[in-house]
């Protein structure tokens, strides 16, 4: 993909706005479908690192209103396999410099993440993962119950509980960042570099010539492009279906909830795969609790109350003080889950079409990493080395990247 400068530098956004809202032009070098974190980051890195600013990000709803507005903002890189360590640690390294790169505060807080172990099996898997992380240069520690209790005094580490805390993995560099500020940061910088952010523009199909994708059909007319990158998360299958392309994805509801503002009680992030709850306390004071996915396929951006009931029951058992809290709001996103709990990134059988999907419950933490890697992939027309293990062909070769242990429901 040749690097072409935008014809003219765009006029700055109107006063008080972070980005322009331009009409889509009839053609671009690159179209990014979906203005979640991944789409915005991809567009930003295309412009910032590859000089490709003739880019539009097409969004069916409003900017960062899908999963980017619905996640629990957790960032970590302590995955088991080398391929995963590569891309998630790449992302974490970029997170560590992102406030400087985007020139704004993102409330990025490396407050650490603990993953609790509740059974002998959990302990063995967790210690194995700590060792694998260390071999990959990722900060990881195994903490016994006493050390966990020191870090999280509100956690019931007694032996009498249904899910006793036998220890935890701990990644000190992990943490959280404000998802809205991250989206707006990428959007504003991409806009400043000439990227068109087009909201209310739903992609309904593709322009094709033979086996090549030449652009997209949208609710606001056809738009031609040299390359199209899909960052549509749970709706990826709906798009690729129009090409007759099957993907190993299932879209599920993923729920979370938030409490009213509370006194500070938790200054780190604690996750538990076994009981399907993960929690942090946002800077203002609300507890943010994530649940497991609902078992069925669903695009409704809502799930079943039973999932939230189970999540709250587990949370109150682990943190008795939470019994004083109330659920202020629950919500759901639509996450695209792959069979091996790892993403699918790279070229497709259609020339000019790139996919980035299958992140399931854990896409947020990868935002800068995948944006960086996908931009490089599109700009150079080949998978970035960190994306190579995550190609679609792995489902045919059998070289899966099984991260169910590190990801599970609590990505």
């Amino acid at each position, binding site marked *: 993909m040749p690097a072409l400068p935008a014809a003219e530098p765009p006029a700055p956004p109107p006063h008080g706005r972070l980005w322009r809202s331009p009409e889509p032009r009839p053609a671009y070098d690159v179209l990014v479908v979906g203005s979640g974190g991944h789409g915005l980051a991809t567009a930003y890195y295309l412009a910032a690192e590859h000089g490709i600013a003739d880019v539009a990000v097409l969004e069916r709803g409003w900017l960062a209103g899908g999963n980017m507005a619905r996640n629990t903002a957790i960032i970590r890189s302590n995955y088991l396999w080398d391929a995963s360590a590569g891309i998630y640690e790449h992302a974490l390294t970029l997170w560590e410099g992102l406030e400087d790169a985007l020139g704004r505060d993102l409330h990025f807080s490396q407050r650490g993440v603990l993953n609790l172990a509740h059974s002998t099996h959990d302990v063995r898997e967790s210690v194995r993962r700590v060792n694998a992380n260390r071999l990959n240069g990722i900060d990881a520690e195994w903490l016994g119950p006493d050390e966990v209790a020191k870090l999280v005094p509100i956690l019931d580490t007694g032996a009498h509980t249904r899910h006793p805390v036998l220890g935890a993995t701990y990644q000190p560099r992990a943490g959280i960042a404000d998802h809205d500020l991250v989206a707006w940061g990428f959007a504003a910088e991409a806009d400043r570099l000439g990227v068109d952010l087009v909201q209310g523009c739903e992609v309904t199909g593709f322009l094709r010539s033979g086996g090549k994708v030449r652009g997209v059909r949208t609710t606001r007319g056809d738009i031609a492009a040299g390359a199209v990158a899909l960052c549509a998360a749970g*709706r990826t*299958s*709906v798009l690729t*279906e129009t090409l007759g392309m*099957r*993907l*190993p*994805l*299932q*879209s599920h509801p993923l729920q979370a909830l938030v409490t009213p503002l509370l006194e500070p009680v938790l200054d780190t992030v604690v996750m538990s795969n076994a009981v399907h709850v993960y929690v942090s306390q946002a800077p203002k004071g609300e507890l943010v609790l994530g649940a497991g996915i609902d*078992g*069925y*396929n*669903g*695009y*409704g951006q*809502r799930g*079943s*109350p*039973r999932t939230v009931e189970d999540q709250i029951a587990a949370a109150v058992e682990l943190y008795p003080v939470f019994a004083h809290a109330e659920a202020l709001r629950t919500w759901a996103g639509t996450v*695209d889950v792959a*069979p091996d709990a790892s993403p699918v990134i790279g070229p497709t059988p259609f020339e000019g079409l790139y996919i980035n999907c299958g992140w399931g419950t854990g896409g947020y933490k990868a935002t800068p990493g995948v944006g960086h890697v996908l931009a490089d992939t599109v700009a150079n027309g080949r998978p970035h080395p960190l994306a190579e293990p995550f190609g679609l062909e792995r*489902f*045919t*070769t*059998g070289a899966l990247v099984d991260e169910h242990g590190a990801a599970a429901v609590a990505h």
Partner: protein
Amino acid sequence: MLLIPCPWCGPRDEREFRYGGQAHIAYPADPSALGDEAWADYLFMRDNPAGRHAERWFHGSGCRAWCDVERDTVDYTVTGSCTTGAHPAGGPDTGPCTSPYCVRRAVPSTGGTR
């Protein structure tokens, strides 16, 4: 909360069931003849429509039998349920579907949404 009509037990709360994914995926007739792509298709590729979906549910806290349910994945309306494999996709019916909630009968929806 989904209200799923079990062909044997009647409408029951979703909590009694376990989801089993897309219905009507037949085991390969001649597995040893399958190439890698066909295996990938059988093992990993599934329909993922935004809309009507034929799917399997297991009534684990009831009769412990599987059934085939038709449900809308956008508004979560359950159209009905059939005995397992009675109406395979793209093929002839394999026998009488004894479900009172059969999706091929002209009966009003008994399933509910949340």
